[in-house]
Structure formats: structure tokens, C-alpha cells
């Protein structure tokens, strides 16, 4: 950019030279300069033109606009800070939430053409996800028409051990030979399985996860062909999976083995997870219809009593992965979108206020020849600069918020570990900044600077005032919607937390482990280990009561038995229907005292019950009620795996969380020696998996060390996970708490912004009407009348906002219905709290400017006029 000094120097040089020439021609000194000046022409105008020659390029005038805008912002730091703060709040929270939900809702999955992949199978009360038994799968695989490929893997990723120097616990999955090709994945090193490898008793080969290859094998490029020891067996690694590989269920798997389904022998075999790729022109609904006949015919493999409760389910892979996080994701995204809208309305309001005070300046510029387009561009540049600054600050806020989300987030939010402010999210932030810059800039930009503004008249602002009031009303309306939604989630959280879970979770430490396949496949070995463990743990000082069970509440890995397969002595067998699955646990006598589950009737297990020949069981209250409505459960004999006598009825435990009614359940006593039950080793882990619960008043950290020491003494290579019962149960409420917390945070931001906006408009209104108020006071208006005058205006638009907001809230509440528990969409309690709160905040925001109005000194006000 050329400076004005350069232009001036160039002109001076010219005039000096001409003067010199004139003097040489004989003119007097004064005369020579005067004539040179005349010959040159209007220097000021020419200098102006020279500047225009250079400033005319788009980029340079943009720089000029930017510099001008920046100067303006620096001159009004309060305005700038407020606007940037509002923009940062809106853009930052939107970016942070987007970075989380993008993975859930939008970003493509790491498979080729991921939109064509579906998950299918039967859905039954047993499992929340669809599965298929191998025998049915063989029929489906053979006769299916809507897919180009169909593949499966054995449900559940089993623990397995790398048994070399430095043993390592791994996750091993068994996948069908066409698994990788169906998902469009190719190994980064080595090769995929061949058809010859995916057969019963085939060669022991495996594909390795990138992480394991990198972490344990230092990216050895020669790994394909090498042999590793898994559970003591040699396995040949044939390839390495890409770094972004993930199982379609998002389970963690370090090694993939061939599934080796045996069509001849697999009848009534294992449960599979089935995935398929749709043919190019087939929709999900068409595919579902096409599979329906196959599903119906494969119902023959389902136990008859069970059939009514089994259905076909087919859904996109994304839906399978996202599960129920979809609604919550949309709700959160909408909530931050609303905050962003409020922020935009807020900044638009600030800009409008600023535009009013700059009316004169703009009018002067227009009068001096600035085109309308030029002025609009200048205003838009300012707002975009504001948006950019807000975006920058927003990025920092987003980073902090994302840290917070990850810290607070419950388990089971898909892909949260991957959420980051990566280029895609930053691009979104940039787009958000520009879009919001345009959104809040458009109204002030279109204000036409009018020459009349130069006259100093104060009447021109009315139309603009109306727009500003509407913007305020909109902010109040959106805040109300946010507040109501947050209020409902909070109320339902409160209701959830007040539901008794049926156990006492304080002071209970848990330890979970899975014995390795290599050393503990025999049930005798398992019993030996558990017996020794029980003895050792019971000896630890401070252990109040101790339980070892195959599973612990809530939910998770519980065994189930069809009611129809049970028998009650002296009662006819169950005939019609299944009665569904009844959960049961394999527990040591201390189970009920360790978990604090009270006995409703009868007694808990005792050590005598474990004696050979004795056989006792305990029913949950719901189950006892169901089997023996007359309340005579004690002493009845029931056959499950073997006949047992009911010795007690235990209080219900809400295994599926506070939002679900208690499920029927029964308890079988774990003995010291192998018995009928321990011989049934259900895959994948059999009875190798066990959980310990210890009630103790000793410091949990100290106790955890002692427990670990006992485990290490028994089997130094066994990984043990220590936890607390409180944490286990608390996890059930994590999701609702997280949702409620975030929504409350965003509602708070929204209300704060709206309050600031309301205050700003009111303050401006009072300033603008100072003279009028002065006149009124001079004419005898009381402070009360002035208060009424000012507040009535605020009340008007607040009321308009509340009415619109109430209508919006009803829609919003309906949208979040599935996230609510024990709260109706029209819950009067929420509205009764939220409405007065919002009104109070609105009142407070307008009260301060009103006070200022009342204190107007009529004399001062009139003197200004």
C-alpha cells in the first residue's frame, strides 16, 4: 500500500522542478512557484485520485474495511467483548457438541459404502440387539435375495491370552471368511482369510489388529507368516488390519479367527451377529420384506413357547452402532443450535443499537459518495470479523467443553473416544462463524443510511426498535424452550434417582475376572480356584461379608432360563407361552448380606446348604409372587437344572436400571465341589468368569490392594478389575444425568444471553427516551408512572416471547419424551418452576434500566434537547 506521504513527495518534486524551470526562464521566485502550482492543477484532488488508483482492488479495500472495523471495535471495548462473548458461547458450544454427535449421526463409518450395510437377525427379550442362531443363519445365507453379501461373526468377543513371555489378555473374535470383503476392508499387511481356512478343523490362522501389531510387535513388517501362542496354541498371523478397523458392534477385538461354522453339526448352535450389504437398488424396507418368509420358516428352530416373542429385525449399521444415542444426540444438537440462535439474535441486537448511534457517521459517508453497496459491504465486513473473532474464541471454548464432555460422559456413547476438534469440526466452526456473522449482520446491513439522520431528528428509530423488540421476544421464547426441556430432564433425573434399587451400594468393593482358557477349562480347576479365593479373601481383615457370583447386578452377563423349562412340584407343567426368560445367578452364601439385599421371607443361604445332598434356592419377590401368588413360596420344590427347595424370598433388585420394572430372578447356591450346574460350560466363557463383592468399612484403596495381592498369590498372570458397587449402579443413571446436565448448561447459557440482550435493549430504550421521560416528569409524572411506562413495554415483548416459547416447549417436550422417566410432556411441575424463574430473570434484567429511568433529572434531560 502506498502512503499519502509518497504521493505528496512525488507531487512536490514535480512542482519544485517546474518552479526551478520557471525561475531559470526568468520568473521571480514567488511568481515561479505560483505558476508551477497552476500548471500542475488541483494537487489535493490529484493525490486523492492517485490513492484511488491503488485502493481500488478488492483485497485492498477489504483490508481497509477490516482495519476500519477493528478500529471501531477497539474504540467500543464493551460492545466488542459482549458480542464476541456471545458469539463464542454460541459457536463454541455448537462446535463441541457437533464434534461429539458428528461421529454418531453424520460421519461415515470406516467401511466402504457404509450406507448399504445392515445388521439383521431375530430380536428377543434375551438381548437388546438382534442375533441369529447358526442353524437359521445357514438357511438365510443360502436363500437370501436382497443382499450382495451376507456375513457373520460369533456373538461376543471372548477373552483370550497371548501366552508368550509377558502374557497379555486379548479380545478374540471369530468371523466368517467373507467378513472383511463384505465390509470392504482389506488388510494393510498380509492377506484376508481364504475359503480353505474358514472350515471346521481348519488351519489355526488369525488376523491381527493394528494396535496390537504396533504396540506389541513394533510394526514388524514380517509379521504375516509368523506364529504366536494364543491360549497355549500356536496360531499363524496371516495379516494386519487397517488402523481404523473396528468391529461392526464396536466391540474391541485384537485378533480375528475364522469362525469355522460346521453346517453339518452346528444345528442349535451358537448365536451369531449377522451383517449384510444391500444390493444397489434395494431399500431397507424391501430387504426386510424379502427376508420375512425366511424368518418365519426359521422360527422352527426357536423353542415353541418362545416363538411369539421373537421378531425379525433389520436396521442400518449406523443405527445398530448408535443404539439409543440418536435421540439424545439430536436433542443436544438442537439445544446448542438454539443457544447459537439466541447468540445471533443477541449480537444482531447489539449491532442494531450500535448502528443507531452510528447513523450519523453512515449518513456522512453516504453523503460523501460512498455507494450503498460499499456501505453494506463495510457493515458485513464488520460482522464477519466479529463472527471470526467469536469463532476463534469459540474454538477455545469448544476445546474446553469437549474435555468436560469426555470427562463427564457415561459409558456407551458411541465413538466418544474419537471425538476431537479435527479439521472437519473446525470447518464446521468456520462455516458456523460465517453463517452466524451473516445472520446477525444482515439486519443492520440493510438499514439504509438516510440523509435525514443528519438533521439530528430522533424519530427515525422506531421501526428499528420494533425489530429489536422482536429479537428480544425470540430470545425469550427460545430460552423458555431450553429451560422447559432442561427442567423436564432434571425432574426425570430426580425421579430416577429416588427409585430404590433394591440393594445397598455403599462400602461394597467389586472385583471382576475371567480365568484363562488355558489353565481353567475343567470345572474342577475352576472350583478349586474359587474355593481358594473365597478362603483367602475371607481372611482379609475388615472384610464384612463376601460374595462370589457369576454375575452382579445391575444386568450384564446374567444367565437366563425359560420359565417353561422349569417345573414346580405338585403343579402341572407350564404349557402355554414361555413366561419369558427368568434370570438367575450362581452365588455363594454371603451374596445377600454383601449386597445388602433384604430377605422378604425365609432366610438367606447358609454354609450348611452347601453340604453334599442339600439343594436350596432363593426366589426374588417378583418371581415368588408370580409362581406362588398365595405367598406360600417357602418350602416349595422347583426343578431348574436339578430339584431344589425354596428357602427364602429376596427383595427385588432393579437389574435393568431404575427406569425398568424389576425382572423375576432366582438364585442357585454355588457349592464347593463340581455339580450338575458347573458341568454346563456355556460358551464363550463358561464359569471361568466370576465376580466378587466385598462389604467392608476399610478404605477402598487399601482394600483394593489387599484384594489384588490375594489374586496375585493365586495366579499372578490373572488380570483383575477392581470397582465399586456404587459406581456400577451409578452408571445406570449416568446417561440421564449427562443429558440433563448438558441441557441445563445450554439452557443456562441461553437464559444468560437472553437476559443480557433484554438488559441491553431496555437500557438503550431508556437512553433514547431520556428526553421524553424528562418532559413527562416535568409535567408531573410520578416515578411509579415512569416505571409503569418503561416496564410495560418490556412486559409486552416478554409476554409475546413466553407465549411463543410455551407453544415451542410443548413440541420440544414431545421430542424428548423417550428420554423422560415419570414426567409427562405437559408436566405442570416443570412449567410452574421454569416460568416464574424466566419471568424473574426478565424482570431483573429490565429493572436496572427502569431504575435509571426513574432517576432521570428532568432539568438535565431537557437541557440536552
Amino acid at each position, binding site marked *: 500500500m*502506498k502512503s499519502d506521504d*509518497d*504521493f505528496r*513527495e*512525488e*507531487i512536490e*518534486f*514535480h512542482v*519544485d*522542478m*517546474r518552479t526551478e524551470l520557471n525561475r531559470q526562464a526568468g520568473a521571480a521566485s514567488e511568481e515561479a512557484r505560483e505558476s508551477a502550482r497552476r*500548471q*500542475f*492543477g*488541483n*494537487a489535493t484532488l*490529484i493525490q486523492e*485520485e*492517485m490513492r*484511488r*488508483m*491503488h485502493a*481500488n*482492488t478488492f483485497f485492498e479495500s477489504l483490508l481497509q474495511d477490516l482495519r476500519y472495523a477493528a478500529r471501531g471495535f477497539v474504540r467500543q471495548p464493551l460492545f466488542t467483548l459482549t458480542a464476541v462473548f456471545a458469539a463464542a458461547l454460541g459457536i463454541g458450544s455448537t462446535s463441541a457438541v457437533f464434534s461429539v454427535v458428528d461421529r454418531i449421526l453424520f460421519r461415515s463409518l470406516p467401511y466402504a459404502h457404509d450406507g448399504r450395510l445392515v445388521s439383521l437377525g431375530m430380536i428377543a427379550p434375551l438381548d437388546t440387539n438382534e442375533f441369529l442362531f447358526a442353524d437359521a443363519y445357514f438357511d438365510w445365507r443360502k436363500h437370501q435375495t436382497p443382499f450382495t453379501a451376507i456375513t457373520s461373526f460369533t456373538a461376543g468377543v471372548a477373552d483370550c491370552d497371548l501366552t508368550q513371555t509377558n502374557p497379555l489378555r486379548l479380545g478374540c473374535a471369530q468371523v466368517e471368511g467373507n467378513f472383511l470383503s463384505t465390509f470392504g476392508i482389506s488388510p494393510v499387511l498380509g492377506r484376508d482369510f481364504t475359503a480353505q481356512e474358514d472350515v471346521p478343523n481348519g488351519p489355526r490362522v488369525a488376523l491381527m489388529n493394528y494396535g496390537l501389531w504396533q504396540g506389541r510387535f513394533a510394526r514388524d513388517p514380517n509379521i504375516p507368516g509368523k506364529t504366536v501362542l494364543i491360549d497355549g496354541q500356536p496360531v499363524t498371523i496371516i495379516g494386519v488390519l487397517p488402523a481404523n478397523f473396528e468391529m461392526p458392534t464396536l466391540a474391541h477385538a485384537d485378533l480375528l479367527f475364522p469362525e469355522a461354522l460346521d453346517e453339518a453339526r452346528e444345528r442349535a448352535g451358537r448365536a451369531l451377529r449377522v451383517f449384510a450389504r444391500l444390493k444397489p437398488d434395494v431399500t431397507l424396507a424391501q430387504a426386510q420384506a424379502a427376508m420375512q418368509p425366511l424368518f418365519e420358516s426359521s422360527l422352527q428352530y426357536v423353542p415353541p413357547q418362545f416363538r411369539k416373542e421373537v421378531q425379525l429385525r433389520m436396521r442400518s449399521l449406523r443405527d445398530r452402532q448408535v443404539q439409543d444415542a440418536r435421540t439424545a444426540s439430536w436433542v443436544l444438537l438442537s439445544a446448542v443450535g438454539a443457544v447459537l440462535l439466541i447468540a445471533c439474535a443477541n449480537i444482531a441486537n447489539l449491532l442494531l443499537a450500535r448502528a443507531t448511534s452510528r447513523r450519523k457517521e453512515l449518513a456522512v459517508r453516504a453523503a460523501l459518495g460512498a455507494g450503498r453497496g460499499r456501505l453494506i459491504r463495510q457493515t458485513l465486513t464488520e460482522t464477519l470479523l466479529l463472527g471470526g473473532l467469536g469463532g476463534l474464541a469459540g474454538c477455545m471454548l469448544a476445546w474446553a467443553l469437549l474435555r468436560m464432555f469426555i470427562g463427564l460422559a457415561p459409558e456407551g456413547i458411541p465413538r466418544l473416544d474419537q471425538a476431537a476438534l479435527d479439521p472437519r469440526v473446525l470447518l464446521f466452526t468456520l462455516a458456523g462463524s460465517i453463517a452466524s456473522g451473516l445472520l446477525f449482520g444482515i439486519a443492520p446491513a440493510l438499514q439504509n443510511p438516510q440523509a435525514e439522520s443528519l438533521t439530528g431528528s430522533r424519530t427515525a428509530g422506531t421501526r428499528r426498535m420494533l425489530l429489536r423488540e422482536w429479537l428480544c421476544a425470540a430470545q425469550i421464547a427460545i430460552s423458555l424452550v431450553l429451560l422447559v426441556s432442561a427442567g423436564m430432564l432434571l425432574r426425570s433425573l430426580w425421579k430416577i434417582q429416588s427409585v430404590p434399587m433394591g440393594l445397598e451400594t455403599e462400602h461394597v468393593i467389586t472385583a471382576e475376572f475371567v480365568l484363562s482358557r488355558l489353565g481353567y477349562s475343567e470345572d474342577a480347576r475352576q472350583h478349586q480356584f474359587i474355593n481358594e479365593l473365597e478362603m483367602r479373601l475371607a481372611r482379609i481383615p475388615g472384610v464384612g461379608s463376601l460374595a462370589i457370583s457369576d454375575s452382579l447386578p445391575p444386568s450384564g452377563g446374567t444367565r437366563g432360563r425359560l420359565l417353561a423349562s422349569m417345573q414346580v412340584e405338585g403343579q402341572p407343567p407350564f404349557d402355554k407361552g414361555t413366561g419369558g426368560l427368568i434370570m438367575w445367578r450362581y452365588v455363594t452364601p454371603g451374596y445377600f448380606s454383601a449386597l445388602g439385599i433384604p430377605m422378604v421371607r425365609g432366610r438367606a443361604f447358609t454354609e450348611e446348604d452347601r453340604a453334599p445332598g442339600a439343594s436350596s434356592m432363593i426366589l426374588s419377590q417378583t418371581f415368588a409372587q408370580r409362581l406362588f401368588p398365595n405367598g406360600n413360596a417357602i418350602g416349595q420344590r422347583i426343578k431348574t437344572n436339578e430339584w431344589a427347595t425354596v428357602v427364602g424370598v429376596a427383595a427385588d433388585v432393579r437389574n435393568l436400571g431404575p427406569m425398568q420394572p424389576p425382572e423375576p430372578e432366582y438364585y442357585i447356591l454355588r457349592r464347593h465341589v463340581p455339580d450338575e450346574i458347573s458341568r454346563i460350560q456355556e460358551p464363550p466363557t463358561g464359569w471361568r468368569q466370576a465376580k466378587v463383592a466385598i462389604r467392608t468399612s476399610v478404605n477402598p484403596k487399601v482394600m483394593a490392594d489387599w484384594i489384588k495381592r490375594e489374586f496375585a498369590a493365586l495366579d499372578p498372570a490373572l488380570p483383575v478389575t477392581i470397582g465399586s458397587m456404587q459406581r456400577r449402579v451409578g452408571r445406570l443413571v449416568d446417561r440421564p444425568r449427562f443429558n440433563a446436565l448438558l441441557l441445563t448448561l445450554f439452557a443456562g447459557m441461553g437464559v444468560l444471553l437472553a437476559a443480557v440482550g433484554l438488559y441491553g435493549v431496555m437500557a438503550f430504550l431508556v437512553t433514547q427516551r431520556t428526553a421524553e421521560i424528562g418532559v413527562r416528569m416535568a409535567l408531573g409524572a410520578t416515578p411509579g408512572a415512569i416505571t409503569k411506562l418503561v416496564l410495560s413495554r418490556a412486559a409486552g415483548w416478554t409476554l409475546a416471547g413466553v407465549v411463543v416459547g410455551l407453544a415451542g416447549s410443548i413440541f420440544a417436550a414431545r421430542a424428548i419424551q423417550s428420554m423422560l422417566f415419570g414426567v409427562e410432556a405437559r408436566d405442570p411441575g416443570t412449567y410452574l418452576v421454569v416460568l416464574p424463574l424466566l419471568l424473574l430473570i426478565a424482570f431483573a434484567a429490565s429493572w436496572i434500566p427502569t431504575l435509571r429511568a426513574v432517576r432521570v433529572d428532568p432539568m438535565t434531560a431537557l437541557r440536552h434537547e
Partner: protein
Amino acid sequence: MVELQGTLVLLILKTLARGPNHGFGIALHIQAASEGLLRVEEGSLYPALHRLERDKLVSAEWKVTGNKRRARYYKLTSAGRKWLAKAEDSWDSMSKGVGRVLRFA
């Protein structure tokens, strides 16, 4: 001035084709070469020069003159040279055309 703009540009570039010069020098040369026929305000030369500079037909730099004063020297760029050649052609053909019209009138 406006109708003379094309001509003025042509004259400036033609002058600079003889070698780099400052604004005053260019003005002197144009007056001398056109034998005083061209009566323009000398100042109007400068916006034209700066536009040529912006359009990259000439380049400029500050240099010290013989009498120890800083002056802004303009120089024809290769783009300017090309433009000049083309413009001279069309000027020739146009002035011939004008001459013919005048003769027949």
C-alpha cells in the same frame, strides 16, 4: 481529459519506451514531442501513471536524481511493451482511417 485518456496513456508509454523517467520528465517530453499541442494539466499525468503501475504496464521505484533529490522513476514493463506495440498498431490504423475520412469529406 476523459477523451484524451487513451492518448495520454499512449504518450506516456511511448515516452517510457525511450528509457525510465520521472513524472516531470515525462511531462516535459510529451510537451516537447507534441510541440505544445497537448495542453493538459500536468497533474493529471500522475493518476494515469499510478493506474499504469497498478495494471503492471509500468513499474516504479524511488531513485535519487542528478541534483540529489528523491524522485519516483517509472519504467516500462514487458507487459507494457507488448501493450504499447499493440496500441500503436491500432492507433496507426485508426489515424489512417480518420485521415481517409477527412480527405473524402
